[in-house]
Each structure stands twice: as C-alpha cells, then as structure tokens.
C-alpha cells in the first residue's frame, strides 16, 4: 500500500483524491481509495516544482477486503 514517495511526486495527480488499483501477491485486484493533499515546492523561478519533494504531504489509504486466516 505504499504511497507516493518524494521521488514519485511528479506522478501524483493534482486531484486531491483518486482510486488506486493495487496488485496483491494473490493477483487479486483490490480497489483502494487513496486521498492525497500536498503542497509542492517551488523552483528557483518561483514555479511549482514537480521534481522537488513536496513541502507537505498528507496521504491516507483505506484498504478493505476479504482475508483468510490459516
């Protein structure tokens, strides 16, 4: 369930929320609602940078699905 790291910030959609499909080892696909709120850093030109780590990042992922305990 790893969220976007600083290195993948450029790939984070601008939308505050999105659905993310995660492939578990069982090859079952489980839909995980992922909520992201972040503030990007600015480059030397004062533009919002997509390569620098964000100044703040709040990430919440709620996962739910069936499990079997052996």
């Amino acid at each position, binding site marked *: 369930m790893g969220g976007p790291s600083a290195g993948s910030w450029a790939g984070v959609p601008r939308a505050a929320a999105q659905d993310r499909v995660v492939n578990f080892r069982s090859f079952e696909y489980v839909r995980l609602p992922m909520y992201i709120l972040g*503030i990007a850093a600015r480059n030397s030109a004062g533009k919002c940078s997509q390569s620098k780590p964000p100044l703040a990042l*709040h990430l919440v992922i709620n996962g739910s699905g069936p499990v079997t305990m052996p």
Partner: protein
Amino acid sequence: MRKIITSAAIAAAAVALLGGTGIAAASSHSATTGTENFQMMTTSATASTDSVIASGVFTAPGVDHENNNANTAKFVFSNGTVSLKHSNGTGKQSFNPKTCLLTINEHGTYTLTGGTGSYAGITGNGKYQLNILAIGARNSAGKCSQTKAPVAFHQVINASGPVTLP
C-alpha cells in the same frame, strides 16, 4: 482504557487543530475573503504538534501546536501564525475491549482569534471533523491497557470555513 486513550486522542486532535510550524510561505494572496481549509494529520497520540496543510485563500504547510487546556491552537507557518479557539468535539466513539480498536468520529466548530506576519488581522470561523483510528496497547495480563499509549494511532482533522485577510 477507553477514557485514557480518548483523552490522549482528543488532546492530540486539539493539538493538531491548533498548532503548526512554518514550512513554507503562503503561496497565494489573490483573494482577501473566501473559504480556507485546514487539514491536520498525525500518527502520534502523544505528540504536541502535528502537520497542517492550509489551502484556499492562502496555501501553506505548517505545524499545529495545541493547548488542550484552553481549547486553543496555533498554526505556525513560515511567514506567520494563525491562532484559533475550538469547541470540544461531539460525535461517536467506539472501543472494542477484545481487539483494543478505538474509533472516534467527532465534529465541532472553531473561531480564528488572530494572526501574525502575513496573517495579521485574519478573521474567520468554521467547522471541523475529527477522525481517529487507533489500537490500544495491552498490559501484562493481556488486557487492553488504559494507561499505555496506543500502539497505533491515525488522526485526521479537516476544518473549513470563511476567512478574511485584511
């Protein structure tokens, strides 16, 4: 246990709602009046500060510092602070004594009481929603502890309302 964890959680929540350390300057002052959103997040039930992201009339990351005794808080941003006073939260709380799972969903109101720096003279108010999901620790007897800090703690507070910057 429930009471203790709840108190710790609410305390942390209050801290989250009110505090803030300066990470970056406000990025936009295009509007002087509008809706401001504050989101506070922490995974610590005992920390006195947590992260806050402000967006709306102004956008800035900061640190939230809470004074639980006074129901007040201060967001500290890199270019100023915003102080507020909030109500006690009301809503649902549940605690499972077998699994030690604690869930709190509460809401309340807040009023901005002042600001410094770029936020000097700020006024506003709004409502907040507090959501906590935590797992209490167990004591040596295997029971959910009422004195130990939770072994896991997720807290998110979303606050929103109109603000005016002079």
